[in-house]
């Protein structure tokens, strides 16, 4: 570990009193959201503009607060999986894995090897789908709904559809899969699925260079290079994880550093790190991860061992699992960073539902950096930065 520099960098003050800013300045207050083409859902930022330069940003999340944590307190361990699907609706597989891993740790259920392989493969394919969606929407933020951005968006969605087809083959659902259970998987790999995975991922990996060609021209570079720089200290303090943290130059990936599933067997897992911390670096990290995830998924799909797919008894009734009580924290690496589950289980009579389930969404921390990063940028840059943070509001507000 590098020595810790606790001296605070001169970050913009998020609690700036706008009256003290400049008495001469004619400030304009503008309201981005909650329903705006570029807020990726329902998110509201109040911007104080001096000309077109933002001097203060006040984010207001919570327009999609659906009380998932409260709902989970009322449901048994076996019933929660489909609920958390809807949190990070771009990567539902990872949500299911996060809560189920916490439950397994709490309940002491062992996951068989085949299920762990399947989870790794599903996680990686889901990461590809999620990053593709991000790439498309990011291009749309930069390029407008009536322009080149839309073209990239359409291409990305075309590829994403093929991944959704893969998942549909496996689970029967296009979107919210409900395929993980406590102790393993619900659906086994169908015959011929591996070949389809190879075919789909091969097609995608051939098209990634096309997107790069389409995006990496001078306009894109000028719009992203040096825009929205987050330095490593700020990123760590803010709790940024995943691609955002790695784009700021911190080599940290839970898949490698705190291996779960079968990631400990992947000795050659390459972690994409960039040092600039700007939108360009975040783009590069994600594109590298796209390639790496395709590689891992294709490597693993041929080596899935035979065996059972679920460790526990088959689930016959919702209240089947009884916890003894206790607290666990489990964090996994989703396309947006560390998705943590802090589970407080009740014992005895309250043993079949979580007493408190706190989900640690990576996007919440990503959005929390808005007051620190927006000031000093123009409105156009704000849209680009917001896009590069890849927030999913379902996850932020829960």
């Amino acid at each position, binding site marked *: 570990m590098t020595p810790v520099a606790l001296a605070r960098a001169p970050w913009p003050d998020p609690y700036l009193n706008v009256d003290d800013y400049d008495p001469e300045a004619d400030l304009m207050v503008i309201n981005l959201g909650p329903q705006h083409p570029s807020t990726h859902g329902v998110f509201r930022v109040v911007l104080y503009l001096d000309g077109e330069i933002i001097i203060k940003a006040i984010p207001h999340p919570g327009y999609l607060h659906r009380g998932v944590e409260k709902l989970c307190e009322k449901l048994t361990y076996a019933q929660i999986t489909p609920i958390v699907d809807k949190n990070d609706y771009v990567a539902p597989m990872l949500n299911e894995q996060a809560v189920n891993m916490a439950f397994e740790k709490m309940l002491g259920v062992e996951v068989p090897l085949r299920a762990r392989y399947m989870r790794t493969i599903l996680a990686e394919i889901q990461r590809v789908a999620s990053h593709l969606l991000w790439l498309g929407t990011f291009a749309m933020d930069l390029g407008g*709904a009536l322009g*080149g951005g839309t073209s990239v968006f359409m291409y990305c969605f075309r590829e994403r559809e093929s991944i959704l087809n893969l998942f549909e083959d496996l689970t029967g659902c296009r979107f919210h899969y409900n395929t993980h259970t406590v102790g393993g998987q619900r659906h086994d790999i169908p015959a011929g699925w591996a070949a389809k995975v190879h075919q789909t991922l091969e097609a995608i990996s051939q098209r990634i260079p096309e997107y790069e060609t389409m995006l990496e021209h001078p306009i*894109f570079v000028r719009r992203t290079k040096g825009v929205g720089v987050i330095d490593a200290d700020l990123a760590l303090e803010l709790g940024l994880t995943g691609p955002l943290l790695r784009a700021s130059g911190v080599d940290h990936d839970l898949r490698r550093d705190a291996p779960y599933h079968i990631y400990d067997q992947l000795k050659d897992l390459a972690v994409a790190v960039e040092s600039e911390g700007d939108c360009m670096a975040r783009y590069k990290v994600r594109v590298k991860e796209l390639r790496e995830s395709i590689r891992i998924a294709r490597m693993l799909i041929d080596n899935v061992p035979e065996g059972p797919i679920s460790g526990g008894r088959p689930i016959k009734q919702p209240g089947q699992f009884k916890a003894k009580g206790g607290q666990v924290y489990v964090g996994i690496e989703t396309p947006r960073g560390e998705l943590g589950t802090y589970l407080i289980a009740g014992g005895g009579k309250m043993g079949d539902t979580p007493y408190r389930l706190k989900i640690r969404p990576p996007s919440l921390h990503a959005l929390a950096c808005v007051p620190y990063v927006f000031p000093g940028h123009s409105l156009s840059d704000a849209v680009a930065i917001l896009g590069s943070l890849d927030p999913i509001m379902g996850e932020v507000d829960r």
Partner: protein
Amino acid sequence: MTDTLEELMLNPVIRALFWGLVMVTAVMTVTAWTTWFERKFAGRMQSRMGPTLVGPAGLLQPLADAAKLLQKEDLIPDSADRFLFNLAPILTVGFALGVAAVVPFTPDILAADLDVGVLWLLALSGLMVFPTWLGSWASNNKYSLISAMRAVAQGISYEVPMVLAIMVPVIMTGTLSLSDIVADQVKNGWLIYRMPFTGFFAFLVFFLAGLAEANRIPFDIPEAESELVAGPTTEYTGMKFGLFYMAEYIHTLLSSAICAAVFFGGWDGPFAPGLHWMLAKSVLLFVFLTWVRWSFLRFRSDQLMDICWKYAVPATLALIPITALYTVWHGGAR
């Protein structure tokens, strides 16, 4: 009967009126189907279909859009300036169509053969920013206001390289009349490849400025949807929005027509009538514009200014003396 018609057509007023009407109708009609074309083209680029269900191959889509826009409720925000709010869409289409008056399609099909056609053209495209600003400001919407500021900055800035760029053909041909510029090209070769090749660079700058004036990607900063919702037209409903929409397309179409006339020899070409050549060239340029639009991202407003003042203006400033010296050296404009 024929004689009286011919006599009538000899009357300059009648003639101008007739061709003006034809031009307006033609441009409006073409514009309507230009939207269809653009949607189809974009669809094909993005591996989808574009309009298919309304009429054969979606050809009736523009009519459906028009019928829809006509029947929409006409909302005017309470805090808007009603008069200016209503005036802006009319002005914007008016100015855009005004440019059509001087576009020489053939030596005959020309609404007004002004001696100072180039000046008329520049004046009107300079005015184009005015209704945008008017409408945005009158809407009393902050997004519109920001887009108005951007539009004014962009429009006025790009007027400079546009004027300077079109000076190159003017110097080379020695006339301010658009039809004379084309006639000169018919005689001495198209400006795009004529020595000393300044025409080509002037074309690039003029084209760029045309893109910027028409608010097309990569320069559609005033109406950047991902930032400013719908830019100047955020508050406009129904046909008023339709007029803005139309004006943008008219402007784009006429920019490509003017480029075709000034740099690509207008109606000049073998085997086919002049009108065909002129239309073919315009359409090709328009396709190119569309292609650019659906493949590029958008600049930021300060970067846009950078391009204008740091590259386009110095470049054109250099082009003018080169062209002038060359022309004088070879005995003045031919």
